């Protein structure tokens, strides 16, 4: 009897590892291995010509970040992008979700329409917007028609990053809207009914019931937003043809990492150090957000 139980146990262990074997393979070879390898790279100078060679340089790669003007520009652009895009897309998502949830006719239709940008690839979206941002393009025509100033959206360093911001707020808000929509289903009707008895207006109900009730979801949406915006790459790359131009105005941290890793020789180790700096930055931003939102909920 005992032997049978042991046999059964061993069979279960075998099945477990059989089931986990593809995961373990990928985890070791393409995630955990690379993380350790990345630490190694960040302390080395890497030469890719012929056979790959590594030269230990200590903390040089990290020190170099402080002297790198382009790294500062990239960081500044990325921070500006994060600080503007995250609140805008969060608020837009919340407003859209609340409006969609108001029980109007045609909800399904609107939801399908709003989804389109979420489904479409960043490459396609960026190309469509570049076509609209053309100097002689649709957006400038509309602006001119209503008497607003027009811009050289793609070529002017002062507006190029704004052009990407507008596009991405438009593209990402619907995704977060869906998360809010799901959460809105859980708000108990009794809360609204009670407020209605007290004579609360629609706005008061939104501000005093919906918004506080959704606070944990908002916290999640903001963290996801932070992680996503810090990693801006595709749009900048396609928009600027990989350069981060005009005049470094669309250069982001990830685009810079890409350039140092794969476009210039001998800077792969430096790129790995930059990638670590970015990971730490994202981590800190996430922690900060968590702390802030927790403090808020004390009131």
């Amino acid at each position, binding site marked *: 009897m005992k032997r049978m139980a042991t046999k059964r*146990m061993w069979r*279960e*262990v075998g*099945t*477990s*590892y059989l*089931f986990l074997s*593809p*995961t373990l393979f*990928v985890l070791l070879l*393409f*995630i*955990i*291995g*690379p*993380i350790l*390898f*990345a630490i190694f790279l960040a302390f080395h100078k890497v030469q890719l010509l012929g056979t*790959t060679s590594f030269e230990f340089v200590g903390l040089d790669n990290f020190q170099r970040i402080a002297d790198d003007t382009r790294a500062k520009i990239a960081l500044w652009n990325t921070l500006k992008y994060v600080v503007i895009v995250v609140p805008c897309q969060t608020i837009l998502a919340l407003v*859209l979700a609340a*409006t*969609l949830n108001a029980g*109007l006719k045609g909800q399904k239709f*609107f939801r399908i329409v*709003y989804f*389109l940008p979420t489904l*479409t*690839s*960043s*490459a*396609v*979206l960026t190309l*469509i917007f570049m*076509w*609209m941002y*053309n100097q002689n393009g*649709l957006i400038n025509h509309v602006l001119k028609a209503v008497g607003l100033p027009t811009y050289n959206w793609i070529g002017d360093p002062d507006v190029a990053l704004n052009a990407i911001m507008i596009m991405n707020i438009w593209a990402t808000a619907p995704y977060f809207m*869906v*998360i809010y*929509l*799901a*959460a809105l289903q859980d708000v108990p009707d009794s809360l609204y009914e009670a407020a209605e008895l007290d004579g609360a207006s*629609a706005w008061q109900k939104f501000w005093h019931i919906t918004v506080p009730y959704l606070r944990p*979801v908002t916290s999640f949406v903001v963290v996801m937003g932070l992680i996503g915006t*810090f*990693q801006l790459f*595709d749009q900048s*790359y396609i928009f600027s*043809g990989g350069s981060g131009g005009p005049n470094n105005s669309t250069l982001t941290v*990830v685009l810079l*990492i890409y350039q140092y*890793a*794969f476009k210039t020789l001998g800077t792969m180790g430096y*790129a*790995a150090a930059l*990638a*670590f700096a*970015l*990971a730490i930055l994202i*981590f800190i931003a996430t922690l900060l957000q968590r702390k802030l939102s927790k403090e808020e909920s004390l009131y």
Partner: protein
Amino acid sequence: MKKKMGIGKLLLYTVLITYAVITMIPFLWALSSSFKTLEEIVSGTMSFIPKKFTLDNYKQIFVEQELFPRWLLNSVVVAGTVTVLNLLFNSMAGYALARLQFPGRKPLFLIILAVLMIPAQVTMIPNYLILKQLGWLNSYQGMIVPTMVNATFIFMMRQFFINFPKELEEAAELDGLGRLGIFFRIVLPLARPALAAQAIFVFMGSWNDFMRPLIILSDPQLFTLPLGLNSFKGQYISYWNYIMAASMVFTLPVLVIYAFFNRYFIKGISFTGGK
């Protein structure tokens, strides 16, 4: 009171319709541009209805540009294979973590959770060097193998299987099915909703991915669509009619899949997102 409700409703509808228009315009503009002649594109007239409706742009990308069908095929092969493998492997891992007893179960789960939080940029450079060492740059396997499991969906499947009724499995065991039989014949078919949501996300993620192919593919023959589209733009820099036609072809498969699985898509977002 009633009148006030009316105004409120009107306001809500105005918001909804305005935003629907804002969402639709870029797509309609791209679609209409893809049916316009080059002269109309260059002349800068701003009409959503093409003056002279033409299919030449689509003909151009499929017939003259031989690589375009190849890119489409590459994308289908890569995204299709990645999706099937993810469904199988993520479920297997999720099931083992949820239901089976084995040494190392807890630490492994924690490691998978931790991996969720590491930004891709950290592993991107070493991944490139590893693939280079394996001789997998410029290959299907280089595109497929590193992405054939996904920590997020292992986590999602684990949550799903934890809530899965145990009685069904016990009944199957009494009928003489082994673990593998139970998993493939009972559990997996019943996990269909979770698998459907996962399939859409994995497929879309792979289909739309830009960074991985950009890094590991340099042979235009092996480009997937996002990369092909980008090189296409470089080649036909002011032929926006061609570029828009190619963009539309690229977007269509995702729209079709979405139309079929709409229901699961929403469930999936709220599942991977909200809770």
